[in-house]
């Protein structure tokens, strides 16, 4: 990735953050969390545990019922959010979809198309610029979605189970690509998933949440055990298996088992 060298990650400070929905469903219990600049954090928890709500609050898409979120090193629209499905605009061609965030920020046409081109090259979709989303495979659509997220060179990248609907091979390819992208971009990444293997492979730090309302069960440092550069064959190593076991146990604890 060729991110501008000035691009640094955001750090986050969450204090006593909680969310109760209208109707009384408590999604997130008051919790404290601090995320360091440039960290890759995976958030794991059972389905419906409130981890997505937490991510939405960090993005500013949802207001917390109480508590505060501080973002440091954040200027304007420096957040990118990737949804569970690609959520492209179906009436726009691939290139115009990737360029959309720049278009909304008022970047001039020539420049935004150039940057969108570059991103598409990096996600391996060169030559598909003029396709419509309906003409792409699920994996290709997700790559376009990631390219769109990265086109603004965000300092904070939030991903909400982005690869959950993809087949295993595509998913592993995208995991590898995302890890490399993070290494090159120095952005802060929060990745919500319910796959332990994916969390282990991707993140430097894994936070395991309990069932609803979300509480932190374990905050585990993966970078102490796993290499910085990670390739597909890491998945077969004993140290990888050991780390997934640790997280699996934490997840079981949080599930009340």
């Amino acid at each position: 990735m060729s991110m501008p060298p000035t691009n640094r990650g955001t750090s986050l400070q969450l204090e006593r953050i909680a969310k109760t929905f209208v109707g009384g469903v408590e999604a997130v219990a008051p919790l404290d969390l601090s995320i360091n600049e440039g960290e890759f954090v995976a958030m794991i928890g059972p389905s419906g545990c409130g981890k997505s709500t937490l991510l939405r609050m960090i993005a500013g898409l949802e207001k917390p019922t109480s508590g505060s979120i501080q973002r440091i090193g954040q200027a304007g629209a420096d957040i990118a959010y990737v949804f569970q499905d690609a959520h492209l605009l179906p009436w726009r061609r691939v290139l115009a979809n990737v360029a959309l965030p720049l278009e909304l920020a008022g970047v001039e046409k020539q420049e935004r198309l150039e940057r969108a081109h570059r991103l598409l090259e990096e996600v391996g979709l060169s030559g598909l610029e003029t396709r419509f989303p309906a003409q792409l495979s699920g994996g290709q659509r997700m790559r376009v979605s990631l390219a769109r997220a990265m086109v603004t060179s965000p300092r904070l990248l939030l991903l909400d189970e982005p690869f959950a609907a993809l087949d295993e091979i595509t998913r592993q390819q995208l995991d590898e690509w995302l890890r490399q992208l993070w290494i090159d971009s120095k952005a802060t990444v929060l990745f919500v998933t319910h796959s332990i293997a994916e969390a282990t492979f991707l993140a430097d730090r894994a936070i395991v949440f309990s069932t609803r309302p979300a509480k932190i069960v374990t905050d585990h440092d993966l970078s102490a055990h796993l290499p910085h550069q990670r390739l597909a064959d890491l998945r077969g190593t004993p140290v990888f298996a050991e780390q997934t076991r640790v997280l699996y146990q934490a997840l079981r604890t949080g599930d009340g088992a």
Partner: protein
Amino acid sequence: MRRFASAIIPPLVPFVVISLIAELAVRMNWVAAYLLPKPTNVFRSLIKNTPEILSAGAETAIASLAGFAISTVLGIGFAILLSNGGWVQRAFYPYAVFFQTVPIIAVAPLLVIWFGFDINAVIASATVVSIFPVIANTLSGLLSTDPALKDMFNLYKAGRLATLLKLRLPFALPSILTGLRVAAGLSVIGAIVGEFITGGGLGGLIQVARQQRQIEKVFATLLIASLLGIALFAMINLVSYLMLRHWHASERKE
């Protein structure tokens, strides 16, 4: 060409068959000729009165298209206002429904008083009848924007206008086109009802022919009126295909 033929020929088959049955029914005296004209006589009347019917048809076509265009612009605009929700929607939506429930036959004479005994009243009638489906369908399209995409536009701090133009309207386009498809046919009906009062166009021609008991001419004129409605409908279908073929399931053919 083959596709065109496959679209045209099948609907012609029932038309020909029913015409043959009607012809037979009248010739065999199963049905009195003053109730149902012989299709051959209708055809003869159509040939004989071609210039008159065509010029009346052109007048009706212009009025229908004008009414349809006004419905499109006002209907979409009104729906955008309503879609912002809150008290605007609560205050004005009942009046949108009024356009659907108003008995046009009863209101047409009023329109003539307001707009005069000319094409303006006919255009007004076409508009009144055809605007509701545009409002209702546009509104439902605007209110069903994908919430994740709305979140994304919020995240990138898109303004209201940018969100409307780049997200909500394109997202609503399939619904809008459904509304326009219904409105196209209704605008012809509205125009003809208006012409019953003003005496112009196909409506006026039908009225006169009926009073003179020229039932073949009534049928010949009706035939052209239906063709006009079908032509408008086909026009919207073409526009819909051109606008949606790349991305919407309704127009994508593999």
